[in-house]
């Protein structure tokens, strides 16, 4: 059997090529995480039960236990100098120099320098090592991934390459292994994750430079990349679930990175808990999969699903539970509420996790389980409905947000809705295409926002002003201070709006086109969803997506206008400190900007075939997704050329209209800084600004009743009332007391009673014999 397997594997065109090293792609970030983890332990961990400064800012007046490195330093004074080659900390700031008390007659340059010096920060020991290990491990993984990609290009395999390593679980007929499933879909995801990941790691080396917990950050970030790669490269649903849970864990760790602030810790908790609800769905789906198909690996499961007639209850149930997992991980209705709160984490984290990679895991899952979703048209229509609704609602909410990161968060939720409409409608290629382009421009937007926030925060910090560095009302006119960032973000804005020829145009247009085309007589359109015919669903989704495109253009342009254009609202004292980002932050922005421009050429539609090679991504993904796509699209009427042009035109028109509306209607000049801004006018504006009160609704409808039931029914009633009363007090206290009482009464010292006991005992023993 082993020999047969080996023989079958040896026949795979990828065996023996660079693709054999694919395990390195997963292992390298893990190694980086471990190394950085050890470095974090020795430099940031203060042992002992009470640590007043657990996130190692170094600013706490109360001294806790020294970290291991500090201890080494005290023991051998030149320890860090020897290790790093120079003294680690900048000299103490000059005494008696105040700041912020009116040096109006001094030159601005001296002011600037003094402010900077006064706030010179202790640099993290081992900073270069951590940066190199952190960024290098992901970069090396990217290199290996590229090599495997080139091998795949050369070999053009028709079936997936499954490399099995160790056995994980074996119980009866159940067998799960540590194995990597390398096919075209996982390759795309791997490249995106490692590529964009490297850029974000590079960005982080500069963004997080002044943070005391630098090593911990990179440890978590590398760990996240490891888990994400495990998710996309895992060969079976359980292994994918390990990655699924792991990215949820790392998301929690990174969102609550500055956990001494309760709001951040709460945001992390919220993300993890809401994710868990989705994970429950994933687990139930896995159980159903095994129960019905007796397999966990993707190949056998897809085969079994293909053998089912469309519309069975089994397939629908599995698909719906899988989608529940997706709503949790990929922030769709009803479980999207964690994503806006997740902006409490560092901005590069938002870029990597909540834009480019983790939230796309749901889309990947649906694409990977295409056979199951194709066998359950009702579930696919559910995906379409939820995606379309999410896209629209999130876009509406994003329209009235003032925090720059929240705008981008809701934008992410909205764009994920687009992707889900695509994969729900059976246009898997369109969904993955949008995933890739979205990774480019959304990561760019977040990183750019990070650069902006970094600059504004720096300006506030050195001038001693305590204000919200993320609020757009405190920005404005940053184009002059940060031109490159501005242009890069404009590229992303145009891309996300869907303006030709940026990347978003191609991917969005493909989704819109596919949804529209699918509504005309395809197998999916024939199905019904809660009685509503699929045609209506798909057309409605198309209309909603078009509306969301309009809204997207509006709110993105709004964001750009308020942040980069108009007059600067940051403040007189702060303005000189606003400057362009350093090169480790700029380079990723520019690279992603370039990708946002040219990314569209990954999948040029046939209509615009004059632009270049047509459908590269579609050809690439054909062996993986063509079958389920065909199953859902079967029988649909072809679109005429005129209709196709009309669709494209409509998309571009809507995008342009959005930008124009934003330019015309919004007046950045009327904005005041956040501290002076009026409250939102009541009505729809306030409702949107307050996120349509969804969080409050969940709190009142779900959280509070659960807490109340837990406290009163479960804790007071069951735990204290019954279990404590019976077992702890009863068995633990009353019963021994009873025995003690009986025992002490028996040992009375009265010989007569002893005789009684004797005789009774004899009677009892004889009784046993008699009764036998």
């Amino acid at each position, binding site marked *: 059997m082993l020999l047969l397997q080996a023989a079958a594997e040896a026949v795979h065109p990828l065996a023996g090529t660079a693709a054999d090293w694919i395990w390195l792609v997963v292992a390298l970030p893990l190694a980086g995480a471990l190394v950085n983890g050890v470095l974090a332990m020795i430099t940031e961990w203060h042992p002992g039960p009470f640590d007043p400064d657990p996130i190692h800012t170094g600013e706490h007046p109360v001294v806790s236990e020294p970290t291991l490195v500090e201890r080494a330093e005290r023991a051998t004074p030149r320890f860090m100098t020897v290790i790093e080659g120079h003294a680690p900390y900048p000299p103490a700031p000059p005494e008696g120099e105040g700041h912020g008390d009116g040096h109006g007659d001094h030159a601005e340059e001296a002011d600037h320098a003094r402010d900077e010096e006064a706030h010179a920060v202790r640099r993290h020991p081992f900073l270069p090592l951590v940066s190199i290990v952190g960024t290098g491990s992901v970069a090396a993984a990217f290199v290996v991934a590229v090599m495997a990609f080139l091998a795949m290009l050369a070999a053009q395999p028709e079936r997936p390459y499954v490399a099995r390593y160790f056995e994980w679980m074996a119980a009866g007929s159940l067998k799960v292994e540590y194995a990597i499933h390398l096919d075209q879909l996982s390759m795309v995801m791997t490249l995106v994750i490692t590529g964009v990941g490297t850029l974000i790691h590079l960005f982080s080396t500069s963004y997080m430079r002044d943070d005391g917990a630098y090593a911990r950050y990179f440890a978590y970030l590398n760990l996240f990349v490891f888990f994400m790669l495990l998710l996309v490269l895992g060969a079976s649903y359980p292994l994918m679930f390990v990655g699924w849970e792991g990215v949820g864990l790392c998301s929690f760790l990174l969102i609550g990175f500055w956990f001494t602030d309760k709001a951040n810790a709460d945001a992390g908790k919220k993300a993890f808990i809401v994710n868990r609800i989705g994970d429950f769905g994933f687990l139930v789906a896995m159980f159903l999969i095994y129960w019905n198909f007796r397999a966990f690996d993707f190949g056998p499961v897809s085969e079994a699903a293909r053998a089912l007639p469309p519309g069975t209850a089994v397939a629908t149930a599995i698909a719906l539970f899988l989608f529940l997992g997706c709503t949790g991980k990929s922030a769709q209705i009803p479980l999207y509420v964690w994503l806006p709160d997740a902006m409490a984490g560092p901005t590069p984290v938002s870029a990597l996790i909540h834009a480019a990679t983790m939230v796309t895991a749901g889309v990947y899952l649906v694409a990977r389980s295409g056979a199951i979703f194709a066998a359950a048209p009702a579930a696919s229509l559910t995906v379409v409905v939820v995606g379309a609704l999410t896209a629209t609602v999130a876009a509406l909410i994003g329209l009235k947000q003032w925090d720059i990161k929240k705008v981008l968060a809701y934008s992410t939720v909205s764009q994920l809705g687009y992707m889900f409409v695509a994969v729900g409608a059976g246009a898997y290629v369109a969904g993955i295409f949008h995933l890739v382009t979205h990774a480019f421009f959304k990561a760019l937007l977040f990183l750019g926002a990070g650069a902006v926030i970094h600059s504004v925060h720096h300006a506030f910090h050195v001038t001693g002003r305590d204000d919200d560095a993320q609020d757009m009302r405190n920005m404005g006119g940053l184009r002059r201070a940060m031109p490159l960032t501005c242009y890069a973000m404009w590229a992303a804005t145009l891309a996300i709006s869907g303006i030709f020829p940026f990347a978003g145009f191609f991917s969005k247009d493909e989704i819109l086109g596919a949804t529209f085309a699918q509504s005309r007589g395809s197998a999916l359109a024939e199905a019904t969803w809660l009685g509503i015919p699929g045609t209506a669903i798909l057309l409605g989704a198309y209309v909603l997506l078009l509306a969301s495109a309009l809204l997207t253009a509006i709110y993105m342009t709004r964001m750009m206008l308020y942040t980069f254009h108009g007059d600067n609202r940051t403040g007189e004292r702060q303005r000189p400190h606003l400057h362009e980002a350093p090169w480790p932050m700029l380079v990723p922005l520019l690279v992603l900007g370039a990708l946002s421009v040219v990314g569209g050429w990954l999948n040029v539609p046939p209509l615009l075939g004059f632009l270049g090679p047509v459908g590269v991504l579609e050809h690439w993904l054909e062996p993986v997704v063509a079958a389920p796509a065909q199953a859902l699209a079967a029988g649909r009427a072809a679109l005429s050329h005129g209709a196709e042009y009309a669709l494209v035109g409509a998309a571009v028109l809507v995008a342009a209209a959005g930008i124009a509306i934003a330019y015309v209607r919004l007046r950045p000049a009327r904005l005041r800084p956040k501290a002076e801004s009026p409250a939102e006018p009541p009505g729809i504006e306030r409702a949107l600004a307050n996120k349509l009160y969804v969080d409050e609704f969940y709190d009142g409808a779900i959280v509070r009743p659960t807490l109340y039931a837990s406290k009163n029914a479960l804790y007071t009633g069951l735990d204290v009332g019954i279990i404590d009363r019976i077992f702890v007090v009863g068995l633990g206290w009353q019963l021994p007391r009873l025995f003690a009482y009986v025992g002490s009464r028996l040992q009375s010292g009265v010989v007569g009673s002893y005789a009684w006991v004797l*005789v*009774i005992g004899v*009677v009892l023993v*004889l*009784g046993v*014999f*008699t009764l036998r």
Partner: protein
Amino acid sequence: MPLFYTFNFYLFGIIAIASALAFVTRKSPVAAALWLVNTMFSLAALYVMLDAHFIGVIQVLVYAGAIMVVFLFVVMLLNLGQGSATTTDIRAWRGRLAAGAVGVVLVAQLLTMLRVRLPEPGPDAAPPVNAITGVADSLFTENLVAFELTSVLLLAAIVGAVVLARRTAPDGADEPGADA
């Protein structure tokens, strides 16, 4: 002959039981001891009728003649002859009733076991003409070690009795000529 035998058997049996009952209900220890002696005599008769002549003799000599005498000596020594006046020697009626119930239960159990366990005695084995020979044989060959050990036991008992009953003066020294 069998009738005579049976009649005597039952006679002595009833005398034994009646004496035992009387023994258990006497207030005075002396009376109780004497009734016990009577019980033992009857039992000796039963032993003889069961062809254990030697045992019957031993019963009279040792049990009734020595052990019970010792009991009586102690009763006399401690001057308990009348039974104490302040306390009635017999407990309250509830205890007696419970004890009686236990006794009945015990008898019932023993009888049940008798019926279940024991086969009806078949034809009696021919008794040895001289009962003592069989016993002597068994005692001095198979059970010789046990026999010798009982002598050690008796020695230990004597020593123990002497030590335990010794009168110790307040300063710890023994009074010479302490009686047993």
